[in-house]
Every structure is written in C-alpha cells, then in structure tokens.
C-alpha cells in the first residue's frame, strides 16, 4: 500500500508538471499580449515587459515560473498589477469551497437516497418520480435551474434571499442550483448499479442465509452498488469545489468562477496559469484520494496495487 501511494503521488506530480508546461505554451500562443492597449506608449510597455520579465527568452521565463511555483508563488496579476495571484485565490476560494461543499454533500446524500429508493421500487410510481427528477437534473442547464429557484423562492414567495453570500439562508439556493446536476448523475448511477447488483448471485446467497431483507439491501446490495459512484466522485469534487462561473455570476458570489473567464478576456497570463494550476492540482489530488479510497473499499483493487 505504501509503495502504491508513493507511486501515485509521483505520477500526480508529473501530471501537474505536464499541465503547467502545456498551459504555459498555449497561453503564449494566444495572439496579442496583456499590455495591448491604445493608451500604452512604447516606453511604458517596454518598462512593463521588463518588470514581468518578458524581455528574457521564453525558456528562461518558463524555468523562472517553475522555480516560483515550487515555492508556492504564482506571481503578480498583469491586469491588476498590485495583486498577487495567491491573494486572489485566497480571497475567492473560500466562497467557492464553501458553496461547493454544500452542493456536494446535498448532491451525494440526496442522489444516493433517490437512486436507492428508485431501484427498490423499480417500475412503480416512486421509481418513475425519481427517474424524472434525474432526467430534469441532467437535461436542464444550471443557469435555468438557478434562475427558476431565484424567481420562485426569492421573488415570488420571498422565502430566501435572491443573491449574494452572507449567511446560511443565502447558501441554500446556489447550492441546490450548483449540485442538482451532480445529484441527478449520482442518483442515475446508483439506481443502475442497485438494479444490476440485485441480480447478482451473491444476493441470492445472502437471501438463502436467511438474513433479513434490510440487511441484504444494506450490507450486500448497497455496499457493492456504491463503488462506481465513488469512481465518478473525483472529477465532480474538483469541479464543484473550485467554483463555477455561471452559478457564481447569477447569485453574485465573489468566488473563483469569474476569475477564470475574466483572466482569459484580459489575457492575464499569470492568473490564467495560476488558476489552471490550482484547478489541475485540485483535480489530480481529488482523483488520487478517490483511487486510494477505492482501494480501501474494494479489496480486489487493494491487493493488485500491492
């Protein structure tokens, strides 16, 4: 197991290095530069370029960036010259993370319940209802769900605040809007797996032991059906926790989402790179944790990794 973890960490580091290199190259391939502005005089531009080190060869810039990255320094923003990328992430990420955690826990718990209830009542009205919710969740874009929730709960009935992020009551609508797709996804995967598991021979074995129906469902069926849900969890966790542009815009939440989009519009090299590295590392780490978790839950994988 130890060897497996070390191997896995090593692979993760390589992945992040490749990610940084590719994004670094791609960003520089975009036509234009961060200082392309009509007001800019050639002297000021040259000064700025010297300040950010653009006068040096690209390969030197690349290694300088890597060197700074190792020490955790993501550099200064080019559009807001006084802001460090680290500070931008530090101020925005807590909002995204908080919202993401709420959305995630809601999506997983309700998704699992919905999937299990649907599978146990297969072909009945309850199943149909759960499947319908799942279809709505997967087919409706999140901004429509967000806007609909705002209209009904915020404006028409006045139950919850429409936007901003200042307290628990503010978090409810955006986390539903953000997590609904994941909820639908989890419930669909769970339902399909529950139905597949019930046909397995070992369920018959369990029943023939004489154990109660509830125990068969919990101990034998759900435990086996939950595996694929864990697999899809890695990317989901990363996507939800690092913030989304759409939901954060609709609900006016000062999270990371808007920086993704704005930095590209401004060709803010350091923010683009910093955000991508942050998101990428998050994704890699989340996937690694899921892999390790998988090994703990599924004995078959644990052994092959040793």
């Amino acid at each position, binding site marked *: 197991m130890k060897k497996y973890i070390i191997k896995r960490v090593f692979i993760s580091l390589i992945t992040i290095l490749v990610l940084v290199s590719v994004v670094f190259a791609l960003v520089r391939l975009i036509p234009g530069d961060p200082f392309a502005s009509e007001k800019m005089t050639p002297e000021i531009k040259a000064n700025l370029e010297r300040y950010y080190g653009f006068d040096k060869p690209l390969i030197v810039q690349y290694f300088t960036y890597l060197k700074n990255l190792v020490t955790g320094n993501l550099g200064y923003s080019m559009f807001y010259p006084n802001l460090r990328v680290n500070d931008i992430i530090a101020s925005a990420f807590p909002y995204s993370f908080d919202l993401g955690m709420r959305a995630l826990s809601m999506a997983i718990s309700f998704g699992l319940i919905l999937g299990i209830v649907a599978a146990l009542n297969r072909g009945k009205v309850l199943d149909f209802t759960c499947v319908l919710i799942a279809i709505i969740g997967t087919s409706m874009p999140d901004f429509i769900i967000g806007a609909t929730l705002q209209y009904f709960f915020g404006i028409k009935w006045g139950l919850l605040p429409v936007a901003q992020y200042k307290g628990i009551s503010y978090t409810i609508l955006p986390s539903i809007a953000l997590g609904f797709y994941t909820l639908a996804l989890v419930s669909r995967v769970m339902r399909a797996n529950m139905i597949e598991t019930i046909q397995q021979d*070992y369920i018959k074995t369990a029943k023939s032991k004489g154990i109660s129906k509830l125990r068969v469902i919990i101990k*034998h069926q759900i435990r086996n059906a939950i595996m694929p849900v864990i697999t899809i969890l890695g990317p989901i966790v990363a996507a939800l926790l690092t913030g989304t542009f759409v939901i954060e815009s609709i609900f006016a939440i000062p999270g990371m989402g808007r920086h993704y989009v704005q930095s590209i519009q401004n060709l803010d090299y350091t923010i683009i790179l910093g955000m991508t590295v942050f998101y990428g590392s998050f994704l890699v780490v989340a996937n690694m944790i899921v892999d390790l978790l998988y090994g703990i839950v599924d004995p078959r994988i644990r052994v092959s990794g040793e």
Partner: protein
Amino acid sequence: MTKNNKPLMRVENLCKYFKIKEGQILKAVDDASFDIYKGETVGLVGESGCGKSTTGRCLVKLEQPTSGEVYFEDKEIYKHKYHEEFISQHPEENIPKINPDQAKLDYTKDVQMIFQNPYSSLNPRMTVKDIVGEGIRLHNKKIKNKELEKTIENLLNDVGLSKDHISRFPHEFSGGQRQRIGIARALSVDPKFIVCDEPISALDVSVQAQVINMLKKIQRERDLTYLFIAHDLSVVKYISDKVIVMYLGNIVEKAKSEDLYKNPMHPYTQALLSSIPVANPKIAKSRKRIVLEGELSSPINPKDCCRFSDRCKHVMPICKEVKPPLLAYEEGHEVACHLY
C-alpha cells in the same frame, strides 16, 4: 441406508408460473411431486430451462411457489400463507400469528443451498470469515468472536481449506476453492437438508471429482440429505440414490438410480442416457445414440398434452391430446408416458 416411513421433504403438486406479459404464462415447474428421505441423495436432471433450479429454489424459499405444498419434517413451509387465511376465517379463536420472517429464519437453519457459480455467488466485498460467519451470527447472536473464528476454522478444515484462508477475499481463490467456501457457508448453520444447484458444473473436471467426493464425505459425517441438481448424468449416477428426470417443468420419470440407468423407460430419459460419453471407444462405437430432433419447445403457455410429444419418436395420437400421468410401473419406478 435406514429408511423410515416419513420423508424428510415432501413436495406435492408444486407449481411455479411466471407471468411474462398479459396472457403469457411461463410454466417453469408444473405439478411436481416427490419425496426425499433422510440421508439420501436425490438427483434432479434435465436440460437447461426445464425447471430444475426453480424447483430447488422453491424448496429453500428463495421463490414463492404459485401453488402446491412443500412439507419439511411434516410441516408446510409456506404455511403462514394459509395460516393467515385460516385466522381471518376464524376470528373468534385466538390463534397466534406466524411471523413470516421468523418462519424463514427458522427454516434456513435447517435447509441450505449450494449455488451453481462459485465465481458470482460470493460477495466480493466480504472476507471468508464474513461470508461463512454471517449465517452463524444470525442464529447465534451472542457468539463470541473467538468462538466464531474457531467454528469457521473447523468448517474450512472440513471442506479442505486451511485456516489461514479465513481473512482472505473470494477473488484470491480458485474456482474449486470458492465452491468449497460456498459449501462451508451452507454447512455453517448445521443444516439437515442441502439443495445443491449444479454445484460442480462451473468447475474443471479434475476439481469436480474432488468436490463431489467431499460432498459425499460430508454427507456421511453429518447425516445430510441432498437434492442434487445437475445436467451431467454420469455425475448424478455416481452420487444419487434416486433420480428424478424433468422435461419442460414436468417430472417425466422417477426411479432408483440403478433402475433408471439400467432400464430407462421414458423416451426422453433414454435419449438423455444415450448422450453420456463413454470412455471406451469400442463400446462407444457399438452404442446406438438416440439423437433428439427439433428444438426444446417453449414453456410459455404449453398445451395440455405430453410436452415431449413434439420430439418423441414413439409419438402416438393420444400423446398430443392427453397429458400422461406419472404412474408407478414397478416398485419405486414411476414414469409419465402413454407407452406404458
């Protein structure tokens, strides 16, 4: 073999129908009756889809039969169904209700099943200890962990596994070893009757013999009774005292093992027996092979006639009209055919 007059398991007019759609009924088991006495092994043979496994599952309460009765030690195992009707008809008498869950729990203490496919019948997420121990825990809730481990180790020893295997997972074993775990699991609650649903058909031939011999040894040691479901006739011949032949949900012949193999009466049994491969090529050449023509007809909405009549070469007009009853031809040899 000692035979008392009362059978351990008595099956009467067992029917299991599956409704496919409106107006389409699959008669998996149709009107099957047989007795199984203590200590014997009854072989149940037939083609795939003839209702052997369904019969077996009805006996361990994995399926609820459509009609018919199954008596185990003179008690109807599905009695609570009738019992409740009886209570509702006699409200003035204070009859205690039977709890169906409790009834099933008590029943599974005595009757267990060994499953066909050892690769899929063991929960991949449980250790051998959990798989074998779950049943023991269920019937003996206060058992201490040490005691439980000791019991499981003894069971593993009995089925030819080592006690080091106790904390391993099913995927770490070969097919034969997995089936041994399955057998240990069935034995764990010390049952009286075991339904073996093709326990060796998924195994290599070399392993088959080991498992069969082990089953025989365990039967002697524990005074067990088996219903042995199989399609391999040579295996059934080796292990069974009596053989029941099924065709499309019907029992067509029922006899003592030696009688059946010496003197098969039903044309279907004759065809089946002639299909057993013989090791000696000289005998194999001289032997007349009866090849059945045509496909197995569908068990969905069968006509009320002899179900073998489409493929039988002795077919007579009456076969297409009247269903032959199962009649005793000689002592202990019953056959359902208009020829006799």
